[in-house]
């Protein structure tokens, strides 16, 4: 029993499941995620990883089971702004530049756009591409532009769906760095991946999806 186990979990699922056309997409899930923890959601294609993350983000209605946020039933406005979701679709407008996209994200989160954007984009490896339309970036660069949101916006829980897809080795190391510093500062993250991933910082929790 570590200290983390006794503290109130950030996110707790009890017999959580989702039905599509009355067929369960995955078997009921039980897990706890504490602040400072990283969970890796594993499973084959079609095992419901993306569905799970969309449900945790609040995009999908919970079919059965319970989901608790800091010990209380999850409600839309209680966790608003504390969760960042990065899905298959990156949420970037192709006609806008990475800087403009970041500015919108900051505005939607009620933040003043500051000098932050430039340094965030530099750290994510997009220096020199700040004002290029996202349309003209490569798939990996688009991914980086989307990941920049994670650095700019404060959130306690990251839900990342396939964050490593389309990234080169440096990009993968970058994501691992991001995750490490996020968990070190008390954040938590859930990451789906069907490949094997090596984290530098300790062994992540594993949540296995079954049909």
């Amino acid at each position, binding site marked *: 029993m570590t200290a983390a186990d006794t503290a109130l979990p950030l996110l707790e699922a009890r017999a959580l499941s989702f039905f*599509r*056309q*009355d*067929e369960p997409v995955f078997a009921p899930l039980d897990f706890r995620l504490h602040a400072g923890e990283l969970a890796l959601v594993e499973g084959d294609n079609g095992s419901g990883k993306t569905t799970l993350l969309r449900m945790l983000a609040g995009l999908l*209605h919970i079919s059965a089971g319970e989901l608790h946020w800091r010990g209380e039933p999850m409600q839309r406005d209680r966790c608003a702004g504390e969760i960042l979701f990065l899905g298959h679709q990156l949420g970037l407008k192709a006609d806008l530049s990475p800087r403009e996209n970041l500015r919108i994200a900051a505005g939607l989160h009620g933040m003043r756009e500051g000098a932050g954007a430039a340094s965030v984009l530099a750290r994510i490896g997009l220096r020199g591409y700040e004002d290029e339309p996202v349309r003209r970036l490569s798939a990996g660069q688009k991914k980086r532009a989307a990941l920049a949101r994670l650095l700019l916006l404060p959130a306690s829980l990251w839900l990342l769906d396939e964050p490593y897809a389309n990234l080169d080795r440096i990009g993968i190391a970058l994501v691992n760095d991001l995750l490490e510093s996020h968990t070190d500062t008390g954040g938590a993250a859930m990451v789906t991946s069907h490949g094997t991933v090596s984290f530098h910082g300790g062994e992540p929790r594993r949540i296995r999806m079954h049909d």
Partner: protein
Amino acid sequence: MASWIPLWLHKLGSPPTFYRFAGALQPWAMALALLLGAIGLYGGLVLAPADYQQADAYRIIFIHVPSAWMSMFIYAVMGVASFVALVWRIKLAEVVAMESAPIGAAFTFITLVTGSLWGKPMWGTWWTWDARLTSELVLLFLFLGVIGLYHAFEDRRQGARAAAFLAIIGIINVPIVHFSVNWWNTLHQGSTVNVFGQSKISADMLWPLLTMTLATKFYYLASLFSRARTDLLALEGGKDWVRKIAEDEASR
């Protein structure tokens, strides 16, 4: 779930229970509809005297007016079921709302065509842009919109929720359409026709009319039951109770 929903309603809302319940009642509702329809039509077509103004043409009233009432009644049922479906996510309410739509569209269509067939000999035109007629036409489009939206979705339950939402928007809209067309008619004087002039109706004509109204109500019930049963089989295809039915019917 809200605790104030009566327990029997909650039980009836479970698909297998409703399937059995509807299956038991459906033949009786259909039999009543046929019996009342036969009595009403005999009274209306044979016993009732010809109208002193409209002669025998008025006999369309015995199907036209009940159909018109049914079109509005079914829309109301669909609206209430849609509301229940959206608020409490009860599957049976979704089924009732979505399976009411085709029946409602059928009655609305009958109302429009029989009204046209009645209007031609009586006021010399197939159609006029009267508030009632226009509202009925808009009602038909709303029914068709609900059906179309329902079938446009891959996920049936998602489609049902979206279409239920449209049905509720429509409920707000129909009175507004009626009001606006009435206003429009005051602006364009001369094109108005007094559709239902004399409302005094003799008892000989009234009882067949009311009997036909009851008959259409029972018909709706019967049709809804058989549609809802089919829909439940399709929606609950993975469940054991449906499998049992499928196997039982195959062995028969």
